[in-house]
């Protein structure tokens, strides 16, 4: 680390007309002879729907993860030493508990809230989700208290599962008992939110702007040059890499917007949403990386696709809907398709993790300072089971967790216990949450 005489303030922004670009952590932000500040811990919940084929997900034994991971985790093998596979977490609130059918609606609505949601399509009721409890406490320290991302369906009303409102299946984050936080699906909207003035443009305005568009970086050239002149060579390179990643996102966005005009993805999608799942995920996750890197937020939820989705995956040769495939009733042909979809999701996640790992933050990587929870609200999607939920904790949470292991808790251990542990690590200690029976044994993960 190069220590310069004059420190750049941590909250420095590159500003221009209609553009605000936050900066990543730079060495120059450390005052001369001062100890390097501890990088903040970031938390993201990355959710996949309809359960996961557990036979091809679970590592059989506790302890160090084996050299060869189960089929679905194979795309994540490069991150074996960055993740903990957690077994036996249960979301009892997702179970019927006399409310009848509707496991998809319940499991998503209760995943981060830990409560049994009200079965209704009208007067929805859940509870404040753990990510929002954290955001309420520490959100003032960043530009965005939290970011909610999604890729599938933004409906907030109507019946999405046997009498459960779409508000349950299509949101993970809840600001209050009755107010979910809908995820941003459109990469352009997310981009504008991160780097723009906060005004969300209409599709027509966006199109008009696109025709004359220059890079957002063009608007902040003055500030960029000024800053660059005050930086050492390492920070200059770091800044260039960071700005390049923003430019790359812009290029992807422009490409996607062109393609979305030309290609009919076979479903309603907002303007600018790439028809290709992988491209869409890459755009959203790249922007989340930038948001984490520049400390624009420390908390995020990311609903890869909505719970109960019947999205098909033609890009990998699966024309059947995801949800129907999961009700395979033991038919191997359908089970294989579920596994393929699960693998495909993991492959996208691997791309994102690689990105997080490549970014240096002090003496470690951005991923080391993250807690990425990758998992689902159902284990066996065929039988709608709510126990042994597939859960990966990726990252070290700021040199706190000891990854590279599988940890199995006792059966029926509430998922809310895990949430309490994560809240602790985010500096928001709570005694109770959802249906928690206590915190996870601290020694088990560290």
């Amino acid at each position, binding site marked *: 680390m190069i220590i310069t005489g004059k420190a750049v303030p941590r909250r420095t922004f590159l500003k221009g007309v209609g553009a605000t670009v936050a900066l990543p952590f730079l060495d120059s932000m450390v005052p001369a002879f001062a100890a390097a500040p501890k990088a903040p811990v970031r938390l993201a919940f990355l959710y996949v729907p309809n359960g996961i084929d557990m036979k091809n997900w679970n590592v059989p034994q506790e302890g160090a993860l084996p050299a060869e991971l189960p089929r679905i985790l194979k795309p994540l093998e490069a991150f074996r030493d960055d993740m903990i596979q957690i077994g036996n977490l249960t979301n009892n609130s997702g179970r019927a508990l*006399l409310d009848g059918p509707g496991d998809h609606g319940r499991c998503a609505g209760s995943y981060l809230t830990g409560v049994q949601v009200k079965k209704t399509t009208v007067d929805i009721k859940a509870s404040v989700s753990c990510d929002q409890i954290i955001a309420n406490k520490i959100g003032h320290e960043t530009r965005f208290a939290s970011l909610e991302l999604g890729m599938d369906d933004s409906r907030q009303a109507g019946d999405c599962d046997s009498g459960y409102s779409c508000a349950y299946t299509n949101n993970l984050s809840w600001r209050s008992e009755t107010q979910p936080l809908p995820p941003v699906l459109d990469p352009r909207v997310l981009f504008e939110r991160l780097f723009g003035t906060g005004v969300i443009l209409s599709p027509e305005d966006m199109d008009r702007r696109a025709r004359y568009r220059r890079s957002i970086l063009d608007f902040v050239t003055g500030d960029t040059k000024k800053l660059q002149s005050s930086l050492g060579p390492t920070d200059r390179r770091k800044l260039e890499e960071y700005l390049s990643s923003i430019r790359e996102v812009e290029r992807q966005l422009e490409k996607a917007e062109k393609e979305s005009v030309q290609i009919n993805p076979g479903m309603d999608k907002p303007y600018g949403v790439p028809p290709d799942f992988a491209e869409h995920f890459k755009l959203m996750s790249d922007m989340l990386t930038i948001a984490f890197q520049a400390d624009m937020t420390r908390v995020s939820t990311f609903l890869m696709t909505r719970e109960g989705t019947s999205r098909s995956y033609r890009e990998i040769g699966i024309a059947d809907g995801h949800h129907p495939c999961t009700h395979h009733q033991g038919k191997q042909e359908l089970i294989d398709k579920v596994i393929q979809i699960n693998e495909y999701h993991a492959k996208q996640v691997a791309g994102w993790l690689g990105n997080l790992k490549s970014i240096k933050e002090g003496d470690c990587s951005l991923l080391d300072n993250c807690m990425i929870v990758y998992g689902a609200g159902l284990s066996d999607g065929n039988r*709608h089971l709510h126990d042994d939920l597939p859960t990966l904790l990726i990252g070290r949470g700021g040199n706190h967790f000891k990854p590279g292991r599988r940890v199995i808790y006792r059966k*029926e251990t509430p998922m809310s216990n895990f949430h309490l542990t994560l809240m602790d690590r985010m500096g928001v200690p709570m005694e109770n949450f959802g249906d928690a*029976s206590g915190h996870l044994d601290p020694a088990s993960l560290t």
Partner: protein
Amino acid sequence: MQQRGPAVRPPIGIALDGDLGNRIDAVLAVAMLNGFTAKTEARRISLSVSRPSVASAQIADVVAAFYRGRPMGGAGGGVGAITEGVIGMPDGSVPGSDSPVLAAALSTKTSDGTPAYTSAITGSVNTAESAVLIRNLLLAQHDGNAAIVLAGPATGLVRILGLYRSGPQISAKCKVLVVAAGSFPAGQPEASIKSDVAAARKLFAEWPTPIVAVGTEVGAALPYPGASIDKDFSWSPAHPLVDAYRAFKPMPYDAPASALAAVLHAVHPDEDYFKLSDPGTISVQDDGSTRFTPAVDGKHRYLIVDPAQKDRIMSLYTAMVSAPPAPRPGRGRGGAI
């Protein structure tokens, strides 16, 4: 608590928490609940052992697996079917507790030398924290349609009281707690109470629903007949209950069975099998003895044996305990869309 779900109620759900490693009547109680399940008079919604003992949990697992004739939740039981096979056990370890008398039953071998019974439980990780398991299963019951039977120390059960929001949940779902421990109205220290006095004291002091206690005097007056073990179980060449009964004490003997009285009262409280004391309050002394003090507004009562009912009860005991596993109904996706 808001009542939800269909109007048709299944038979009462019984959560059984017992010292299956040390009390033969707790093992008999599992069999008796199977008998009531076969007659659709009750459902065993959860089974937990009351000490942190893996060997006890293995016994519970073997016996439960033997009787797994139908999902524990039964019709309308909700989560019961999903947690089928999960045995509850309190967290923690008590020095010397993992040496249950009945563990010998597990070592029974078949004629070819292979173990007659195998348990899927190899450590505490294969079990659930009993308080959480019971709480989760209670939440799947209609309001007032569940009862808890405790036939062992209160070590695990009392921890439900510490779970967030558990008070209203227990009050709503659990009609009564029946405790097969202590002596009433007063008597000598009893083993289950004595082994965790603090837990028993807290349970009687803080439990939110009515409690009915079944003392050792009831168990002694209505023992399970050893003769039944010799003649009523021939329908199975190997039976874990029979082996456990024989391992518990040299045969022949009749086993004191307060746990069976507790189950019977929990399932059929209104059929006059027993008399009930006036209301009062049960307190636990330092030496592990219990004392009942009458009080008009007390939430506690204890069972009193009615000699006129003895033959009727004994006949029911043997019929229910020796019943073969209840037939298993077809299993659908139950709740899937």
